């Protein structure tokens, strides 16, 4: 590919895209909603491979076993896709990402690759046990989202790789999900803390499976696995939020920043995780 600054390619096929990425010196680019804000008053130093026109990469597909959210699928695409109730949490997150302007351009894959601690897509996809598919000329690898993001704005994405799809295995039909975001204003807000939950009840009404994840309260969104175990068997008359204690959030390591103190984030995490669980455990609502 062409060398030097301001090099830009907009491949039409995955093969071309992977070829363009092969040198490992380019940034894969699509919605621009993270890249441009990071370059106010300065130009991009690295070559850009704009994958927005790559055929077959946009949209949500279901093959009977797995939902495949293509690498250029926008938040608005997810909102418009017919998906089962287990995806309500992801859809609720989609509605809370920035503004409609952002949702129309920003992609789920980009949100994951940017790996902000406050990425709204991470907690819902963690609770869905999502995998990510990474492709390069060297091959394709699939790994759990939890293994993909390794730290503050850090992922295992290799310089020549593209996040080509987010994969979610079919969910139990009774699984219900939710997402709760806490911010200092109504729209266009970076989360102080947010949580997503997926809850499934058995025929007896007791919780048979629970997944809950909290974002913006540690370098990477975290599942609360002890809490998930403690919720198993909870009867319908008990609110999941009632059993949460501070020991359930021991894995969280929040920081002080312009949005809130760490002490507050820990307290709020309990409240927000509880609210998300109660929502998912209650009557499901189609949004």
């Amino acid at each position: 590919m062409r060398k030097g600054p301001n090099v830009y390619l907009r491949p039409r096929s995955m093969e071309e895209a992977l070829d363009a990425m092969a040198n490992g010196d380019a940034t894969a680019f699509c919605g621009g909603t993270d890249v441009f804000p990071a370059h106010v008053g300065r130009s991009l130093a690295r070559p850009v491979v704009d994958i927005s026109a790559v055929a077959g990469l946009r949209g949500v597909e279901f093959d009977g076993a797995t939902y495949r959210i293509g690498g250029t699928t926008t938040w608005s695409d997810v909102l418009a896709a017919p998906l089962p109730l287990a995806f309500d949490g992801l859809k609720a997150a989609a509605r809370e990402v920035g503004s409609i302007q952002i949702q129309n351009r920003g992609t789920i894959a980009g949100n994951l690759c940017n790996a902000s601690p406050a990425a709204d897509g991470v907690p819902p996809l963690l609770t869905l046990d999502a995998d990510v598919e990474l492709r390069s000329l060297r091959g394709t690898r699939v790994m759990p989202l939890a293994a993909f993001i390794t730290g503050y704005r850090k992922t295992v994405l290799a310089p020549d790789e593209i996040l080509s799809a987010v994969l979610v295995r079919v969910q139990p039909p009774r699984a219900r999900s939710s997402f709760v975001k806490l911010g200092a204003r109504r729209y266009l807000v970076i989360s102080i803390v947010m949580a997503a939950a997926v809850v499934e009840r058995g025929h007896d009404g007791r919780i048979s499976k629970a997944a809950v994840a909290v974002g913006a309260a540690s370098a990477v969104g975290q599942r609360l696995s002890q809490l998930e175990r403690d919720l198993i068997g909870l009867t319908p008359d008990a609110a999941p939020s009632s059993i949460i204690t501070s020991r359930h959030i021991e894995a969280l390591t929040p920081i002080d920043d312009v949005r809130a103190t760490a002490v507050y984030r820990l307290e709020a995490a309990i409240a927000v995780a509880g609210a998300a669980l109660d929502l998912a455990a209650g009557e499901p609502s189609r949004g």
Partner: protein
Amino acid sequence: MADAISFTLNGAVTACTGSPMARLSDVLRHQLGKTGTKTGCDAGDCGACSVLIDGDIACACLVPVAQAEGTHVVTIEGLPQHSTMGERLQRAFLARGAAQCGICTPGMLMAAAALLAREKAPTRDMIADALGGVLCRCTGYAKIIAAVADAASGTIAAFEEPGAGHAVGAAIARLDGQPKVDGTEAFGADAIPRDALWIRAIRSPFHRAGFVLGNSTAFLASNPQIVRILTAADIPGRNLFGAIPAFADQPVFATGETRFKGEAVAAVVGPRAIIEALDISGFPVTWQELPPLLTPQQAVAADAHQLHANRPGNILVRGRVARGDVEAALASAAITVEGQFETGFVEHAYIEPEAGWARRVGERIEITVSTQSPYLDRDDTAAILGLAPEAVRIIPSACGGGFGSKLDLSVQPFVAVAAWVTGRPCAMVFSRPESIQSTTKRHPASMRSRMAATREGDLVAMDFEGDFNTGAYSSWGPTVANRVPVHASGPYAVPHYRAQSRAILTNCVSAGAFRGFGVPQTVIAQEQMLDMLAEKIGFDALEFRIRNALTDDTPTVTGQVMGDGVGIRECLVALRFDWLRARKDARNFNLGSGRLRRGVGVAGMFYGCGNTSLPNPSTIRFGLKPDGRLSLHQGAVDIGQGSNTVIAQIAADAVGLPLALIDLVSADTDLSPDCGKSSASRQTFVTGKAAERAGLALRRAMLRLANAGPDAAIEIAHGRLLVQEPAIIRAVQLDRQPLDHHGYVLCTEETFDPPTSPLDANGQGSPYAVYGFGAHLAEVEVDMTLGTVKVLQIVAAHDVGRAINPNLIEGQIEGGVAQGIGMALMEEFTPGRGENLHDYLIPTIGDIPPIRSILVERPSSVGPFGAKGVGEQVLIPTAPAILNAIYNASGARITRTPATPDRVRAAIRALEAT
């Protein structure tokens, strides 16, 4: 890449060249001439650049132009033709007053058009969801929501032109509104010549630093298209400016040491594309970071370094007002309370960053710039260039929001010096980070107060001390320090009073003027202290205020007796019904045991219109043209607040002719006399009074021309002045009359300077000729677990003397309340952090509750038609009303603003621990 990118723009196939990664917003504005699309942040945070791409709304600043290939793009310029509801939306926005400054209006209209294309009858929530991505800093969003609903339902009000003598009091649409809704309004960055050179400043990365500028040869060799580097050595006149001439202390380019993060030391000048893409990290400067003073406490410490040689102890200025014997009164009082309160830096966050350009015309310079104060700009820039003031012409562009910060020089010195030394047009547009870093803020305040009352509920004494962090340079710090002690009592009679203020220099960005000049900070202390007193006495908080409210005959803390027009009592009484209703609602709601608690709070305020004990005249020229139309030289810059409309309404009724006859002449310093700055809530009052005088004088001149008596009726028709007395009609054919040197048949020029008196050593005197009064009631809901606060409703009562244009006043109230909500709940700037609009949060359309305005009219004998200012008054009581409501709901007293969720929760947690 040379390949042209092709797309359909407003129905026409368009090709453009250049970088494929160029932001679509930049290509639209700079290459395709579509400057109706505004840019406010380049980060998707403000939504001003919203356009439709294949029918979907998008921020054009986040779209590389290459992704527009093959799409249909619609901008504001094509909205009427290429959307189903665009034209209707534009009419509805105009009719409702949904555009104030107008900078967000194109983005709002595009987002609304996207909504109405898919939703014929949207609910309020749907409108809010659709417009949630576009920030507005002026309107408080209420009229925007109403306008979208009007457009959807097709119920758009049509105003009739008010007839002669009926302009004052008419809720007409703003006279300058059409360009704001059709995208043709030219703001500071919108009419820059294509051949202009662009300027970029090299700014200090540290709060305080020594620096050495290196040899620029290598830098210029590697950037051969740079035309010029500017440093302090290039300043033709004095390298010094300041909003208040006697305090001028700020260099255009620092020498020796920088005093705040973001201070300029040099600038590069060259073609736009080169300057915008320039990697300034290669600029030859070496920095030596020095230990900064960031707080007033640090700055007044004995061993603190001195920021300016002539400011011992880093004290810029002290203010003091004292009356009675405050210590004795406090010592003997039955009921006393004390408190400490802190506020943070607040950013103006207008959606239009500072922008302008200059060109040299012989030995003169012309500067087109977004400003609130053309004559101050002129004089200060002239000194920098070493020119006479008359050699500088300031042409105010449309101003996309000011709120005080555009009273100071920003781009003006840079464009002026660059154009002067290069001889070419030179432009500068601040990026959002640059705007936040380098322009003024609201002063952080650290306040201590004691107040006392009798058991019967009469205020006896108040002792107030406030330190204000004024940053590195003087700006309007002296004004804040002087206003504070005059206003720290609030609109109440306090017989024993002492208020002392200090503006303290630090290594922070300068704090200057921001809607209320320090008063919004003092009321956060004083109005909460009133509630503390009332509670301790066992008095109803509203009735306590009513009992102690100033009257026409009671002296203020400066000893001034107004004589008429003191409407604070009426404002408070106007809230009584809602107060009782809301208190009851909250009590009932709180009978439940949930974690949500409701509360109600109230706060009052007064605010002196115009400069504090200083002259601030306005001069209006009003001419009769040979074609029978009138020229109003309206030098009060309309920054969205509506002076173009209000001043014209006053002038029309004063001259006694229809408003429709008036043509506005802009605040261009070559065309219109000085109407002072658009600040201090002075334009309706001071310039309005000058307009009233000019109108009356023009009427007298017309009567003289027709040789008629003072009671004759005047009309202008078919180029003739018709003057009717009971027995006779005289007609004057205007185009046969001799013209004066302005080209007018008749011309009057009238000046008004409000009558004030100097303050003595104890701050006693009459600092303002007129005060505005008001009171707000806030209903809130506090989440006791999360500390989040939702404002449910605001009721705002304001004594405006006479409502010249009730619709515009309502718009001011709604916008002021929105800024007050921001100040109360979310806005704080920490120097060096969050220099963008996603870390610095201002309210979105979803954060503003219903706002009900109550206009009280207690006329002032001094103001035009009895009118008073309202621009700042409307923001002042909101924050303390909300804070009092938070206390009422939760029992937690918030002494540090903003009341962010973590601070509210911490206060509640502290209560739970006791």
